């Protein structure tokens, strides 16, 4: 995250001295970015909520919204300390003065950045919230709501925080090995996507998944499109905010990240439309929305490291690869309901690797004939897959034995909205 300021297209400039004061522009942008990333959570809730059946629209949205509550608290209490506290051997952070953010000096800038540390805490906290929410897409319409909540907080603590530390903390062991992850391709998307797959396999498919005669259709694609719009909007904070600074010259990275984000999303939307047109002769709105998200995912690790033209290519590739990845679940009969793995997992892996191909700053990639970075990226990808997958398996195994992973058959049939929440999403027939 901070790496890009050190070399690459800034290489020829002297290193920015540690600022003693806040830069007001950077602070403004990071406050804005933090708000934008928070908005992605309702955006995700709409995106997912629109795709499920009416009887599960609320419980699906709640899996995202509740993360704002649960992880919102967890992050302030311990999450930040675990992720960005003083490194214990590059493996985990810790700093008891960071508990409940109590010991943070409010008027001191964070690290070498020109923003208050609390703003950095908040920005990072939004990432911690949305990551477990992404997982819910794989187990929608059947996982027990309360178990998912518990899973959320355990997973955030045992999987997300360590991984964030490894990849982003200055002493994190993957960071020190030079793995690039600009805005969370590995920490957020691979981790969430792979965990989603493991969880989906353990929860098992919906009772009517892949059954002859059963037609599972999205209750409200307008929500899904709206959600995709909010996600794209918020993603500018996610990616361009990951530059952390907009003063001269670091603002160039923010501008670049903004541009690559936009480019990849657009190209991916176009490519998904093309795939669908070629495959079925129709262009769907869900497909366009999915393409946007795939493009945004793929460019996340690369946003500040690649040129806009290559971002177009990455976006297009993301749609082609994710489109096929999504088809696998029908062939292999696992129920990744809303394709959390198919889009985020696969897109994240692709993005992390392609970063090693197309990067030009701060290091050169395969394009310039150098395979070193690709190797480092592969290391990051491998570690994330193994760690997130394995840890999720352990956590879910314990939860399965204790709370149960799955809603009752009656709940699944009638929808969890009524049984678990005592509500229905829509009451359109009341007089």
């Amino acid at each position: 995250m901070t790496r890009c300021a050190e070399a690459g297209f800034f290489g020829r400039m002297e290193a920015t001295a540690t600022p003693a004061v806040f830069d007001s522009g950077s602070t403004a942008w990071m406050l804005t970015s933090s708000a934008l990333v928070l908005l992605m959570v309702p955006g995700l809730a709409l995106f997912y909520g629109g795709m499920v059946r009416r009887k599960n629209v609320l419980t699906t949205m709640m899996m995202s919204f509740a993360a704002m509550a649960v992880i919102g608290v967890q992050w302030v209490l311990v999450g930040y300390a675990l992720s960005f506290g003083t490194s214990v051997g590059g493996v985990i952070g810790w700093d008891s003065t960071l508990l409940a953010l109590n010991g943070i000096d409010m008027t001191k800038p964070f690290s070498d950045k020109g923003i208050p540390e609390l703003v950095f805490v908040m920005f990072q906290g939004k990432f911690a919230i949305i990551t477990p929410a992404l997982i819910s897409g794989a187990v929608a319409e059947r996982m027990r709501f309360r178990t998912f909540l518990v899973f959320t907080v355990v997973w955030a603590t045992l999987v997300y925080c360590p991984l964030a530390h490894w990849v982003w903390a200055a002493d994190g062991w993957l960071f020190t090995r030079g793995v690039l992850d600009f805005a969370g391709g590995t920490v957020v998307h691979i981790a969430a996507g792979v965990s989603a797959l493991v969880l989906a396999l353990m929860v098992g498919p919906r009772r009517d998944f892949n059954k002859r005669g059963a037609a599972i259709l999205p209750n409200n694609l307008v929500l899904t499109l709206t959600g995709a719009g909010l996600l794209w909007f918020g993603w500018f904070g996610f990616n361009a905010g990951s530059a952390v600074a907009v003063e001269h010259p670091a603002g160039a990275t923010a501008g670049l990240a903004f541009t690559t984000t936009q480019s990849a999303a657009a190209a991916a939307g176009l490519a998904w439309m093309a795939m669908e047109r070629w495959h079925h002769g129709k262009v769907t709105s869900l497909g366009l929305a999915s393409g946007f998200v795939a493009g945004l995912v793929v460019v996340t690790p690369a946003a500040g490291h690649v040129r806009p033209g290559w971002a177009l290519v990455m976006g297009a590739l993301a749609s082609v690869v994710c489109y096929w990845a999504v088809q696998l679940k029908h062939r292999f009969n696992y129920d990744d309901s809303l394709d959390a793995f198919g889009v985020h997992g696969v897109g994240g892996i692709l993005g992390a690797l392609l970063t090693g191909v197309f990067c030009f700053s701060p290091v050169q990639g395969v394009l310039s004939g150098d395979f070193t970075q690709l190797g480092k990226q592969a290391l990051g990808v491998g570690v994330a897959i193994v760690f997130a997958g394995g840890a999720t398996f352990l956590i879910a195994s314990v939860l399965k034995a204790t709370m149960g992973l799955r809603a009752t058959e009656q709940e699944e049939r009638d929808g969890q909205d009524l049984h678990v929440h005592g509500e229905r999403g829509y009451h359109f027939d009341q007089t």
Partner: protein
Amino acid sequence: MKMIIAIIRPERLEAVEEALGAVLDEGDNFRITTDTVEGRGRQEGEVELFRGHEVHVRNVQKTRITLCVNDEYVEKTIAAIQRGARTEPNGAVGDGKIFVVPLEEAVRIRTGERGGSAI
């Protein structure tokens, strides 16, 4: 008196109403009750897409119309519905059905009138 219940394609409702208007005495003001139903007959349901996967919907959305008429209008009504609802030129699977049920009594709530004149 009969209650005539027809299940037709939603898109033909317009034409059916026109045809009915032409034969029923009350002119534009003929009376009819409409609702939307799901039908399962010989017609194939629609195919929708979900991320590249074809989802086959067995049922088809249909419009159901209900008309209560005096006996002398039964055949005219049936004929009008047929005219309006049939897809040119020779009809197609899914054009629908007409069912006729005996009607023993009709009451106009406003006036309390009964029987044929209440229809």
